């Protein structure tokens, strides 16, 4: 179902024999260039994939601003902001892992990949807590859905709030699935890095995975304001 499951082989995919140039490439530089361009083109498809969801979000927000504002108020601002920070930290550790791969510090690659893994895991755990919270509060569309404010009153324009929560789960769910795939690839990279497979001359998998991880971060950078922040203040209290 998720696109990465399909493409993971390419992400992790560069040559199995490390630094070896495959038969159909002229040289290592061509091989690395091809892998990098391939990864970027793949990220373009990801942009368009999430683009469809963003489109649905904007269209319905335009149509039902009251419902979106009131439903958005039911998300936990503090948790959202904290989790955003966690993800930004993981982006930093990932960038540093790539950095140390490029200058050949084996132990530091492993360290920062593990840190990235832990931060990603933290993000996912918090997300799971939020989902559970929504389930308990009957905020899952289609399953005893009932949007209520903190005071127990029905949300404003409650009839249209399922659209917001459908999009909330659709967007964050797809994002989380990308994270889960990322965590899987991270585990693989860590075992490889421990064996010292990545050298300044050849560390394409780490580099390409970094692109993927940062992309997932960028998606969240947009999801956070759209789902948690917008029109929070505009709600009549």
């Amino acid at each position, binding site marked *: *179902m998720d*696109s990465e499951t*399909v*493409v993971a*082989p*390419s992400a992790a*995919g560069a040559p199995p024999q490390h630094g070896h140039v495959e*038969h*159909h*490439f*002229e040289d290592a530089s*061509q091989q690395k*260039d*091809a892998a990098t*361009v*391939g990864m970027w*083109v*793949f990220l*373009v*498809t*990801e*942009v*368009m*994939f*999430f*683009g*469809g*969801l963003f*489109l*649905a979000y904007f*269209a*319905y927000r335009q*149509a*039902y601003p009251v*419902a979106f504002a009131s439903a958005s108020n039911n998300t936990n601002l503090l948790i959202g902001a904290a989790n955003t920070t966690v993800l930004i930290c993981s982006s930093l550790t990932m960038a540093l892992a790539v950095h140390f791969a490029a200058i050949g510090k084996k132990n530091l690659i492993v360290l920062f990949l593990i840190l990235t893994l832990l931060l990603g895991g933290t993000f996912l755990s918090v997300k799971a807590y939020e989902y559970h919270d929504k389930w308990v509060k009957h905020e*899952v*569309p*289609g399953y005893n859905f009932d949007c209520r404010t903190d005071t127990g009153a029905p949300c404003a324009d409650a*009839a*249209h709030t*399922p*659209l917001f*929560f*459908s*999009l909330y*789960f*659709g967007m964050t769910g*797809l994002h989380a699935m990308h994270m889960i795939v990322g965590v899987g690839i991270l585990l693989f990279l860590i075992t490889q890095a421990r064996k010292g497979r990545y050298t300044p001359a050849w560390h394409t998998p780490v580099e390409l995975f970094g692109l993927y991880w940062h992309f997932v971060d960028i998606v969240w950078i947009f999801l956070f304001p759209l789902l948690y922040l917008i029109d929070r203040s505009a709600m009549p209290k």
Partner: protein
Amino acid sequence: MIAATPPTEIKKNFFNQKQGLASWLLTYDHKRIAILYLLGVTFFFAIGGIFAALIRLELATPAGDLVDSNTYNKFFTMHGIIMVFLFLIPSIPAVFGNFLIPLMIGAKDVAFPRLNLLSWYIYMIGGLFIITVLLMGGVDTGWTFYTPFSTSYSNGYVVAAGMGIFIAGFSSILTGLNFIVTIHRMRAPGLTWFRLPLFIWAHYATSMIQVLGTPVIAVTLFLLVLERGLHIGFFDPAYGGDPVLFQHMFWFYSHPAVYIMILPSMGVVTEIITTFSSKKPFGYTFIAFSSVAIAVFGFIVWGHHLFVSGQSAYAGMVFSVLSYIVAIPSAIKVFNWTATMYKGAVRLTTPMLYALGFIGLFTIGGLTGLFLASLGMDVHLTDTYFVVAHFHYVMVGGAIMGFLGGIHYWWPKIFGKMYNEGWSKISAVIIFIGFNLTFFPQFLLGYMGMPRRYHVYPPEFQVLNVLSSAGASVLAIGYLIPFCYLLYSLKYGPDAPPNPWGATTLEWKTQSPPITQNFEVTPVVTQEAYTYTTEEVVHVG
């Protein structure tokens, strides 16, 4: 009629360099993967064709006397899904693109051979889903899956069909990604962008659409499946969801998808016309850039499918004028092909017949598109048989004529055998006549007002429908003949020389069929494409 090289000892080629089923199913060779795709698309074309035959059979009479309405609806839905997603979209890119792009750019393979094989498996898994749906009882939404019918009212296997298309979509994305990287990074020394064959330009443009558009249909179907499977609402009017939003998202991909089908075909036709006119294509840069222009403009016209659907009238106006702008690059191509023949040395071989047939049918298909882009006209014509006729002229008259032209043009290169020119010319003519007989009456039906997807229709439409059904049977015969003589040629056909047509592109500079590595020595390109010299002249046609 063929001055083939005298038979010598069996040469090494990509067929015989490795043997056994496993060597095929685990191959990373782009040429073998192309042949795997050829088997796949031919299989699905046959299935889709059977449904087409059943549809035309039912419509021979105004009453619903062959099957009931529910079954009929499943027929046209399965016909549409299989033909669009499992035949037309992969057909030329995955078969000829795969086989020829590395050969034409002097590379040993595509950039990501493993990914290429994976694409084929993904395609087959997606196809398997669709076949499963078929065996379980089908789906009745139409290939367009409009909500809320598909999400809340259909009694077919919408989730499984949606999943099948979703999966097959990733095959298309990966193929496009592979080609883009290959064309950017794998060209032979000296092969600059403006020395590339126009086939490559067409495939580059196609790949852009595959990469940029397909993810949007994927996410749209993903939401559709979630809504139907988990009852959470994205498009459901009960929650205030907007069915028109679904249509926007659907057509954002599905309109450019038409160009996924037709652009590669245009690439094939360009190659054929230049070869059989023995002349450089007229306006190389215009043909090249018009491919890219079609790919870009193709993305901003989708709203012309929504003129009567509740879209705002102002949006409709913008989409209408943009639709006319995308017509111009297509017109440029047609004029340039025609001008290529001017003062050429024209040989009416079978591929050339298909290419000329393509020009005729695509011209009609494109011009009738102008009718549908005109707002006031479209209000009357949309959702009628006029639309059905129009897109069959483009997709069958265009894409399939290009596919068949390509088969006949590159058959000697792919399989190293020559086929029977007499039979192939007869079948080309039969297909052309049968096609027009099938689909031209549908233009008239459409203007008369016969809506599409009608199982039962008023009796005054019968005469034209009978004509159309009769044409379909001629067309079916036309499609069956090539099966026979092409298969025959595999065993009994004379061996093909490396360059039977006197063509100039790189794939003809290696043996037929090529060796696994494509070229003994990586070719170095020193001149523009399509420089015809006398040593290339071969006595054929």
